[in-house]
């Protein structure tokens, strides 16, 4: 009995599915899935990619035609989300899958399933723990320096004085420069014979000074450059906090003869606390990913003393071609950054509410 009543209902549904209309997105989806499967089965990877891309565009067009005028918000957001998915999320998921296989990008052999072996290899490798150790030392050094120097800079620039605007922009310039160019010219400054640093030291000691040949020397060399570039960033955030303090609070405190340090602790600090935290998180995230500067300035040397975890991933992936092992390592880095980003956004939202409230 049921089949007799079902068939007439199924026919219009099928007819709807093959109707050549622009808003027929289920039909386009079916074409996309079948077409892609056929293309992958029959064609070379290079061509099947373009075939499936064309079919995906067709599918996207039908979805747009269907949603036009009805789901405006979704329609506006969709292209961005689709692009991010194709170029960011999908590759990441794919590499997550790859981390369970044994795969080398310079060999033609197909990937073989190895389960958690890559993670085991990475987590028990003393080299990795050493690089993690290097990274953490660099992060601690550079973030502390940036916070302290940036804070002092902000105090210096917190009051109005002649030419302030122009001097401020000179301080803010390094932040916008490229790590590559900066790394290249600090190689010149750190050069044992011709570098300014060596020459300055020689004035006092009479000997040329090679900063980058000791472990701590090269660490300081990197931290100096990074702090030079990014302490203005901390300054910018702290300044934003300092100028948001209402003037009457200081006036009231002055009437009550509250000492300066007490004014700072009770009035100023609460206004900049949130921003200090944001600066700290933001800079920690960025410092954790430190790659370009180390790559250009020391290339991890001397030995592997300044090889950061990002540089190690680069070496494993593109110099040793142990691709799947590098993806396992990359995921450890990824996890840290996601946690930190989550914290950053939480506090940023909190601050946005605080600013909007009064």
């Amino acid at each position, binding site marked *: 009995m049921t089949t007799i009543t079902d068939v007439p209902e199924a026919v219009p549904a099928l007819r709807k599915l093959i109707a050549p209309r622009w808003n027929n997105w289920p039909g386009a989806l079916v074409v996309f899935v079948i077409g892609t499967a056929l293309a992958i089965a029959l064609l070379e990877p290079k061509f099947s990619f373009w075939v499936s891309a064309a079919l995906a565009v067709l599918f996207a067009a039908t979805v747009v035609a269907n949603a036009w005028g009805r789901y405006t918000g979704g329609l506006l957001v969709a292209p961005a989300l689709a692009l991010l998915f194709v*170029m960011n999320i999908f590759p990441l998921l794919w590499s997550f899958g790859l981390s369970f296989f044994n795969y080398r990008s310079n060999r033609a052999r197909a990937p073989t399933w190895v389960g958690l072996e890559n993670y085991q290899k990475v987590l028990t490798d003393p080299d990795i723990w050493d690089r993690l150790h290097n990274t953490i030392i660099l992060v601690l050094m550079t973030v502390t320096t940036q916070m302290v120097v940036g804070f002092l800079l902000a105090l210096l620039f917190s009051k109005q004085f*002649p030419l*302030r605007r122009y001097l401020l922009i*000179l301080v803010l310039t390094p932040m916008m420069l490229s790590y590559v160019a900066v790394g290249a010219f600090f190689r010149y*400054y750190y050069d044992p014979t011709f570098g300014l640093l060596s020459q300055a030291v020689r004035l006092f000691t009479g000997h040329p000074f090679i900063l980058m040949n000791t472990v701590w020397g090269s660490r300081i060399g990197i931290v100096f450059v990074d702090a030079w570039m990014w302490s203005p960033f901390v300054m910018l955030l702290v300044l*934003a906090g300092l100028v948001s303090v209402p003037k009457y609070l200081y006036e009231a405190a002055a009437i009550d003869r509250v000492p300066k340090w007490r004014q700072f602790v009770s009035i100023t600090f609460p206004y900049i606390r949130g921003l200090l935290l944001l600066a700290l998180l933001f800079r920690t995230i960025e410092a954790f990913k430190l790659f370009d500067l180390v790559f250009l300035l020391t290339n991890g040397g001397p030995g592997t003393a300044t090889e950061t975890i990002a540089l190690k*991933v680069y070496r494993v992936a593109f110099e040793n071609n142990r691709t799947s092992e590098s993806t396992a390592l990359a995921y450890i880095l990824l996890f840290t950054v996601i946690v930190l980003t989550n914290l950053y956004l939480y506090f940023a939202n909190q601050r946005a509410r605080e*600013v909007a409230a009064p």
Partner: protein
Amino acid sequence: MTDLAQDVAGARPAPVARALRIRRVRFGGAASGVGHAGWGRTIAAAIVSFIYFFPVFWIILTAFKTYEDALAVPAKFFFTPTLENFVQVFNRSFSAGAQAQNTGFTLYFFNSLFISGVSVLLALAIGAMAAFGFSRYPLKGNDTYLFMILTTRMLPAIVVIIPIFIMFRVTGLAGTYAGIIGLYTVFNLPFAIWMMKSFFDELSPDVEDAARIDGSSDVRVFFKICLPQVWAGLAATAVFGLILTWNEFLFALLLSGVETRTVPVAMSQTIGGDIGVRWGLLAAIETLFLVPVIIVTFALQNQLLRGVTFGTIKR
């Protein structure tokens, strides 16, 4: 429709006033509430600024030095400037006495400009649209999407590049303009979305509601009411995107071919390459590379805070 936008803007000068107020407060104008300091502070700040700017200044100076002057010990502050280095960036002989030939830097500078220009325009178009969507049509799960979008921007480039490198090799996109432009578009997209969202959030929705009541479609509201009010924001986002892309190194290192190489990659390859210790020449490349960024930074200073925090902190 433009008439309506003008009428509305005339009747409600809020965006302009708001822009001016932001300008005054950003670095603490007269109303900063922290008080004044005299010329003494100027002198202290000048010393600090000089220290901060000195490395850049010295590179620009070195770019005008001859080979001997750049290697002089002790370093020379006063010398006869030469433009030789800037000529040699583009055209020089690679061995003594040989014919001068093109170094390829004309192409690399063109590539940097072309790739960052196109990708920023694309990212801006898609990003502004998405930002408007996120700002005006609060859907369920928007916060999750926004978090995801910002996270993709914060991710270490090295993590993202491994799968993309393989993908590009399989699809034949590696080393092509299309590939690197596509990648940079996505790289700029999270920034564009967050930045533009922060500008759209600041607009008052009253005008849009009025226009809607008068029968404007969503498309018209977007193009005729909202976009004209955020021109400054669009410009700032574009310029920040340009700087980010112009400076980007790792993606370009791994994914650009000989024909699509950008300046940072070419620069990193000249270090320790045929240039050796010709610091003047290297400094000239760096000067040509950095000076546009420095000039733009001057123009952008009022938006700097928002720009460097991806629009998450406005004031």
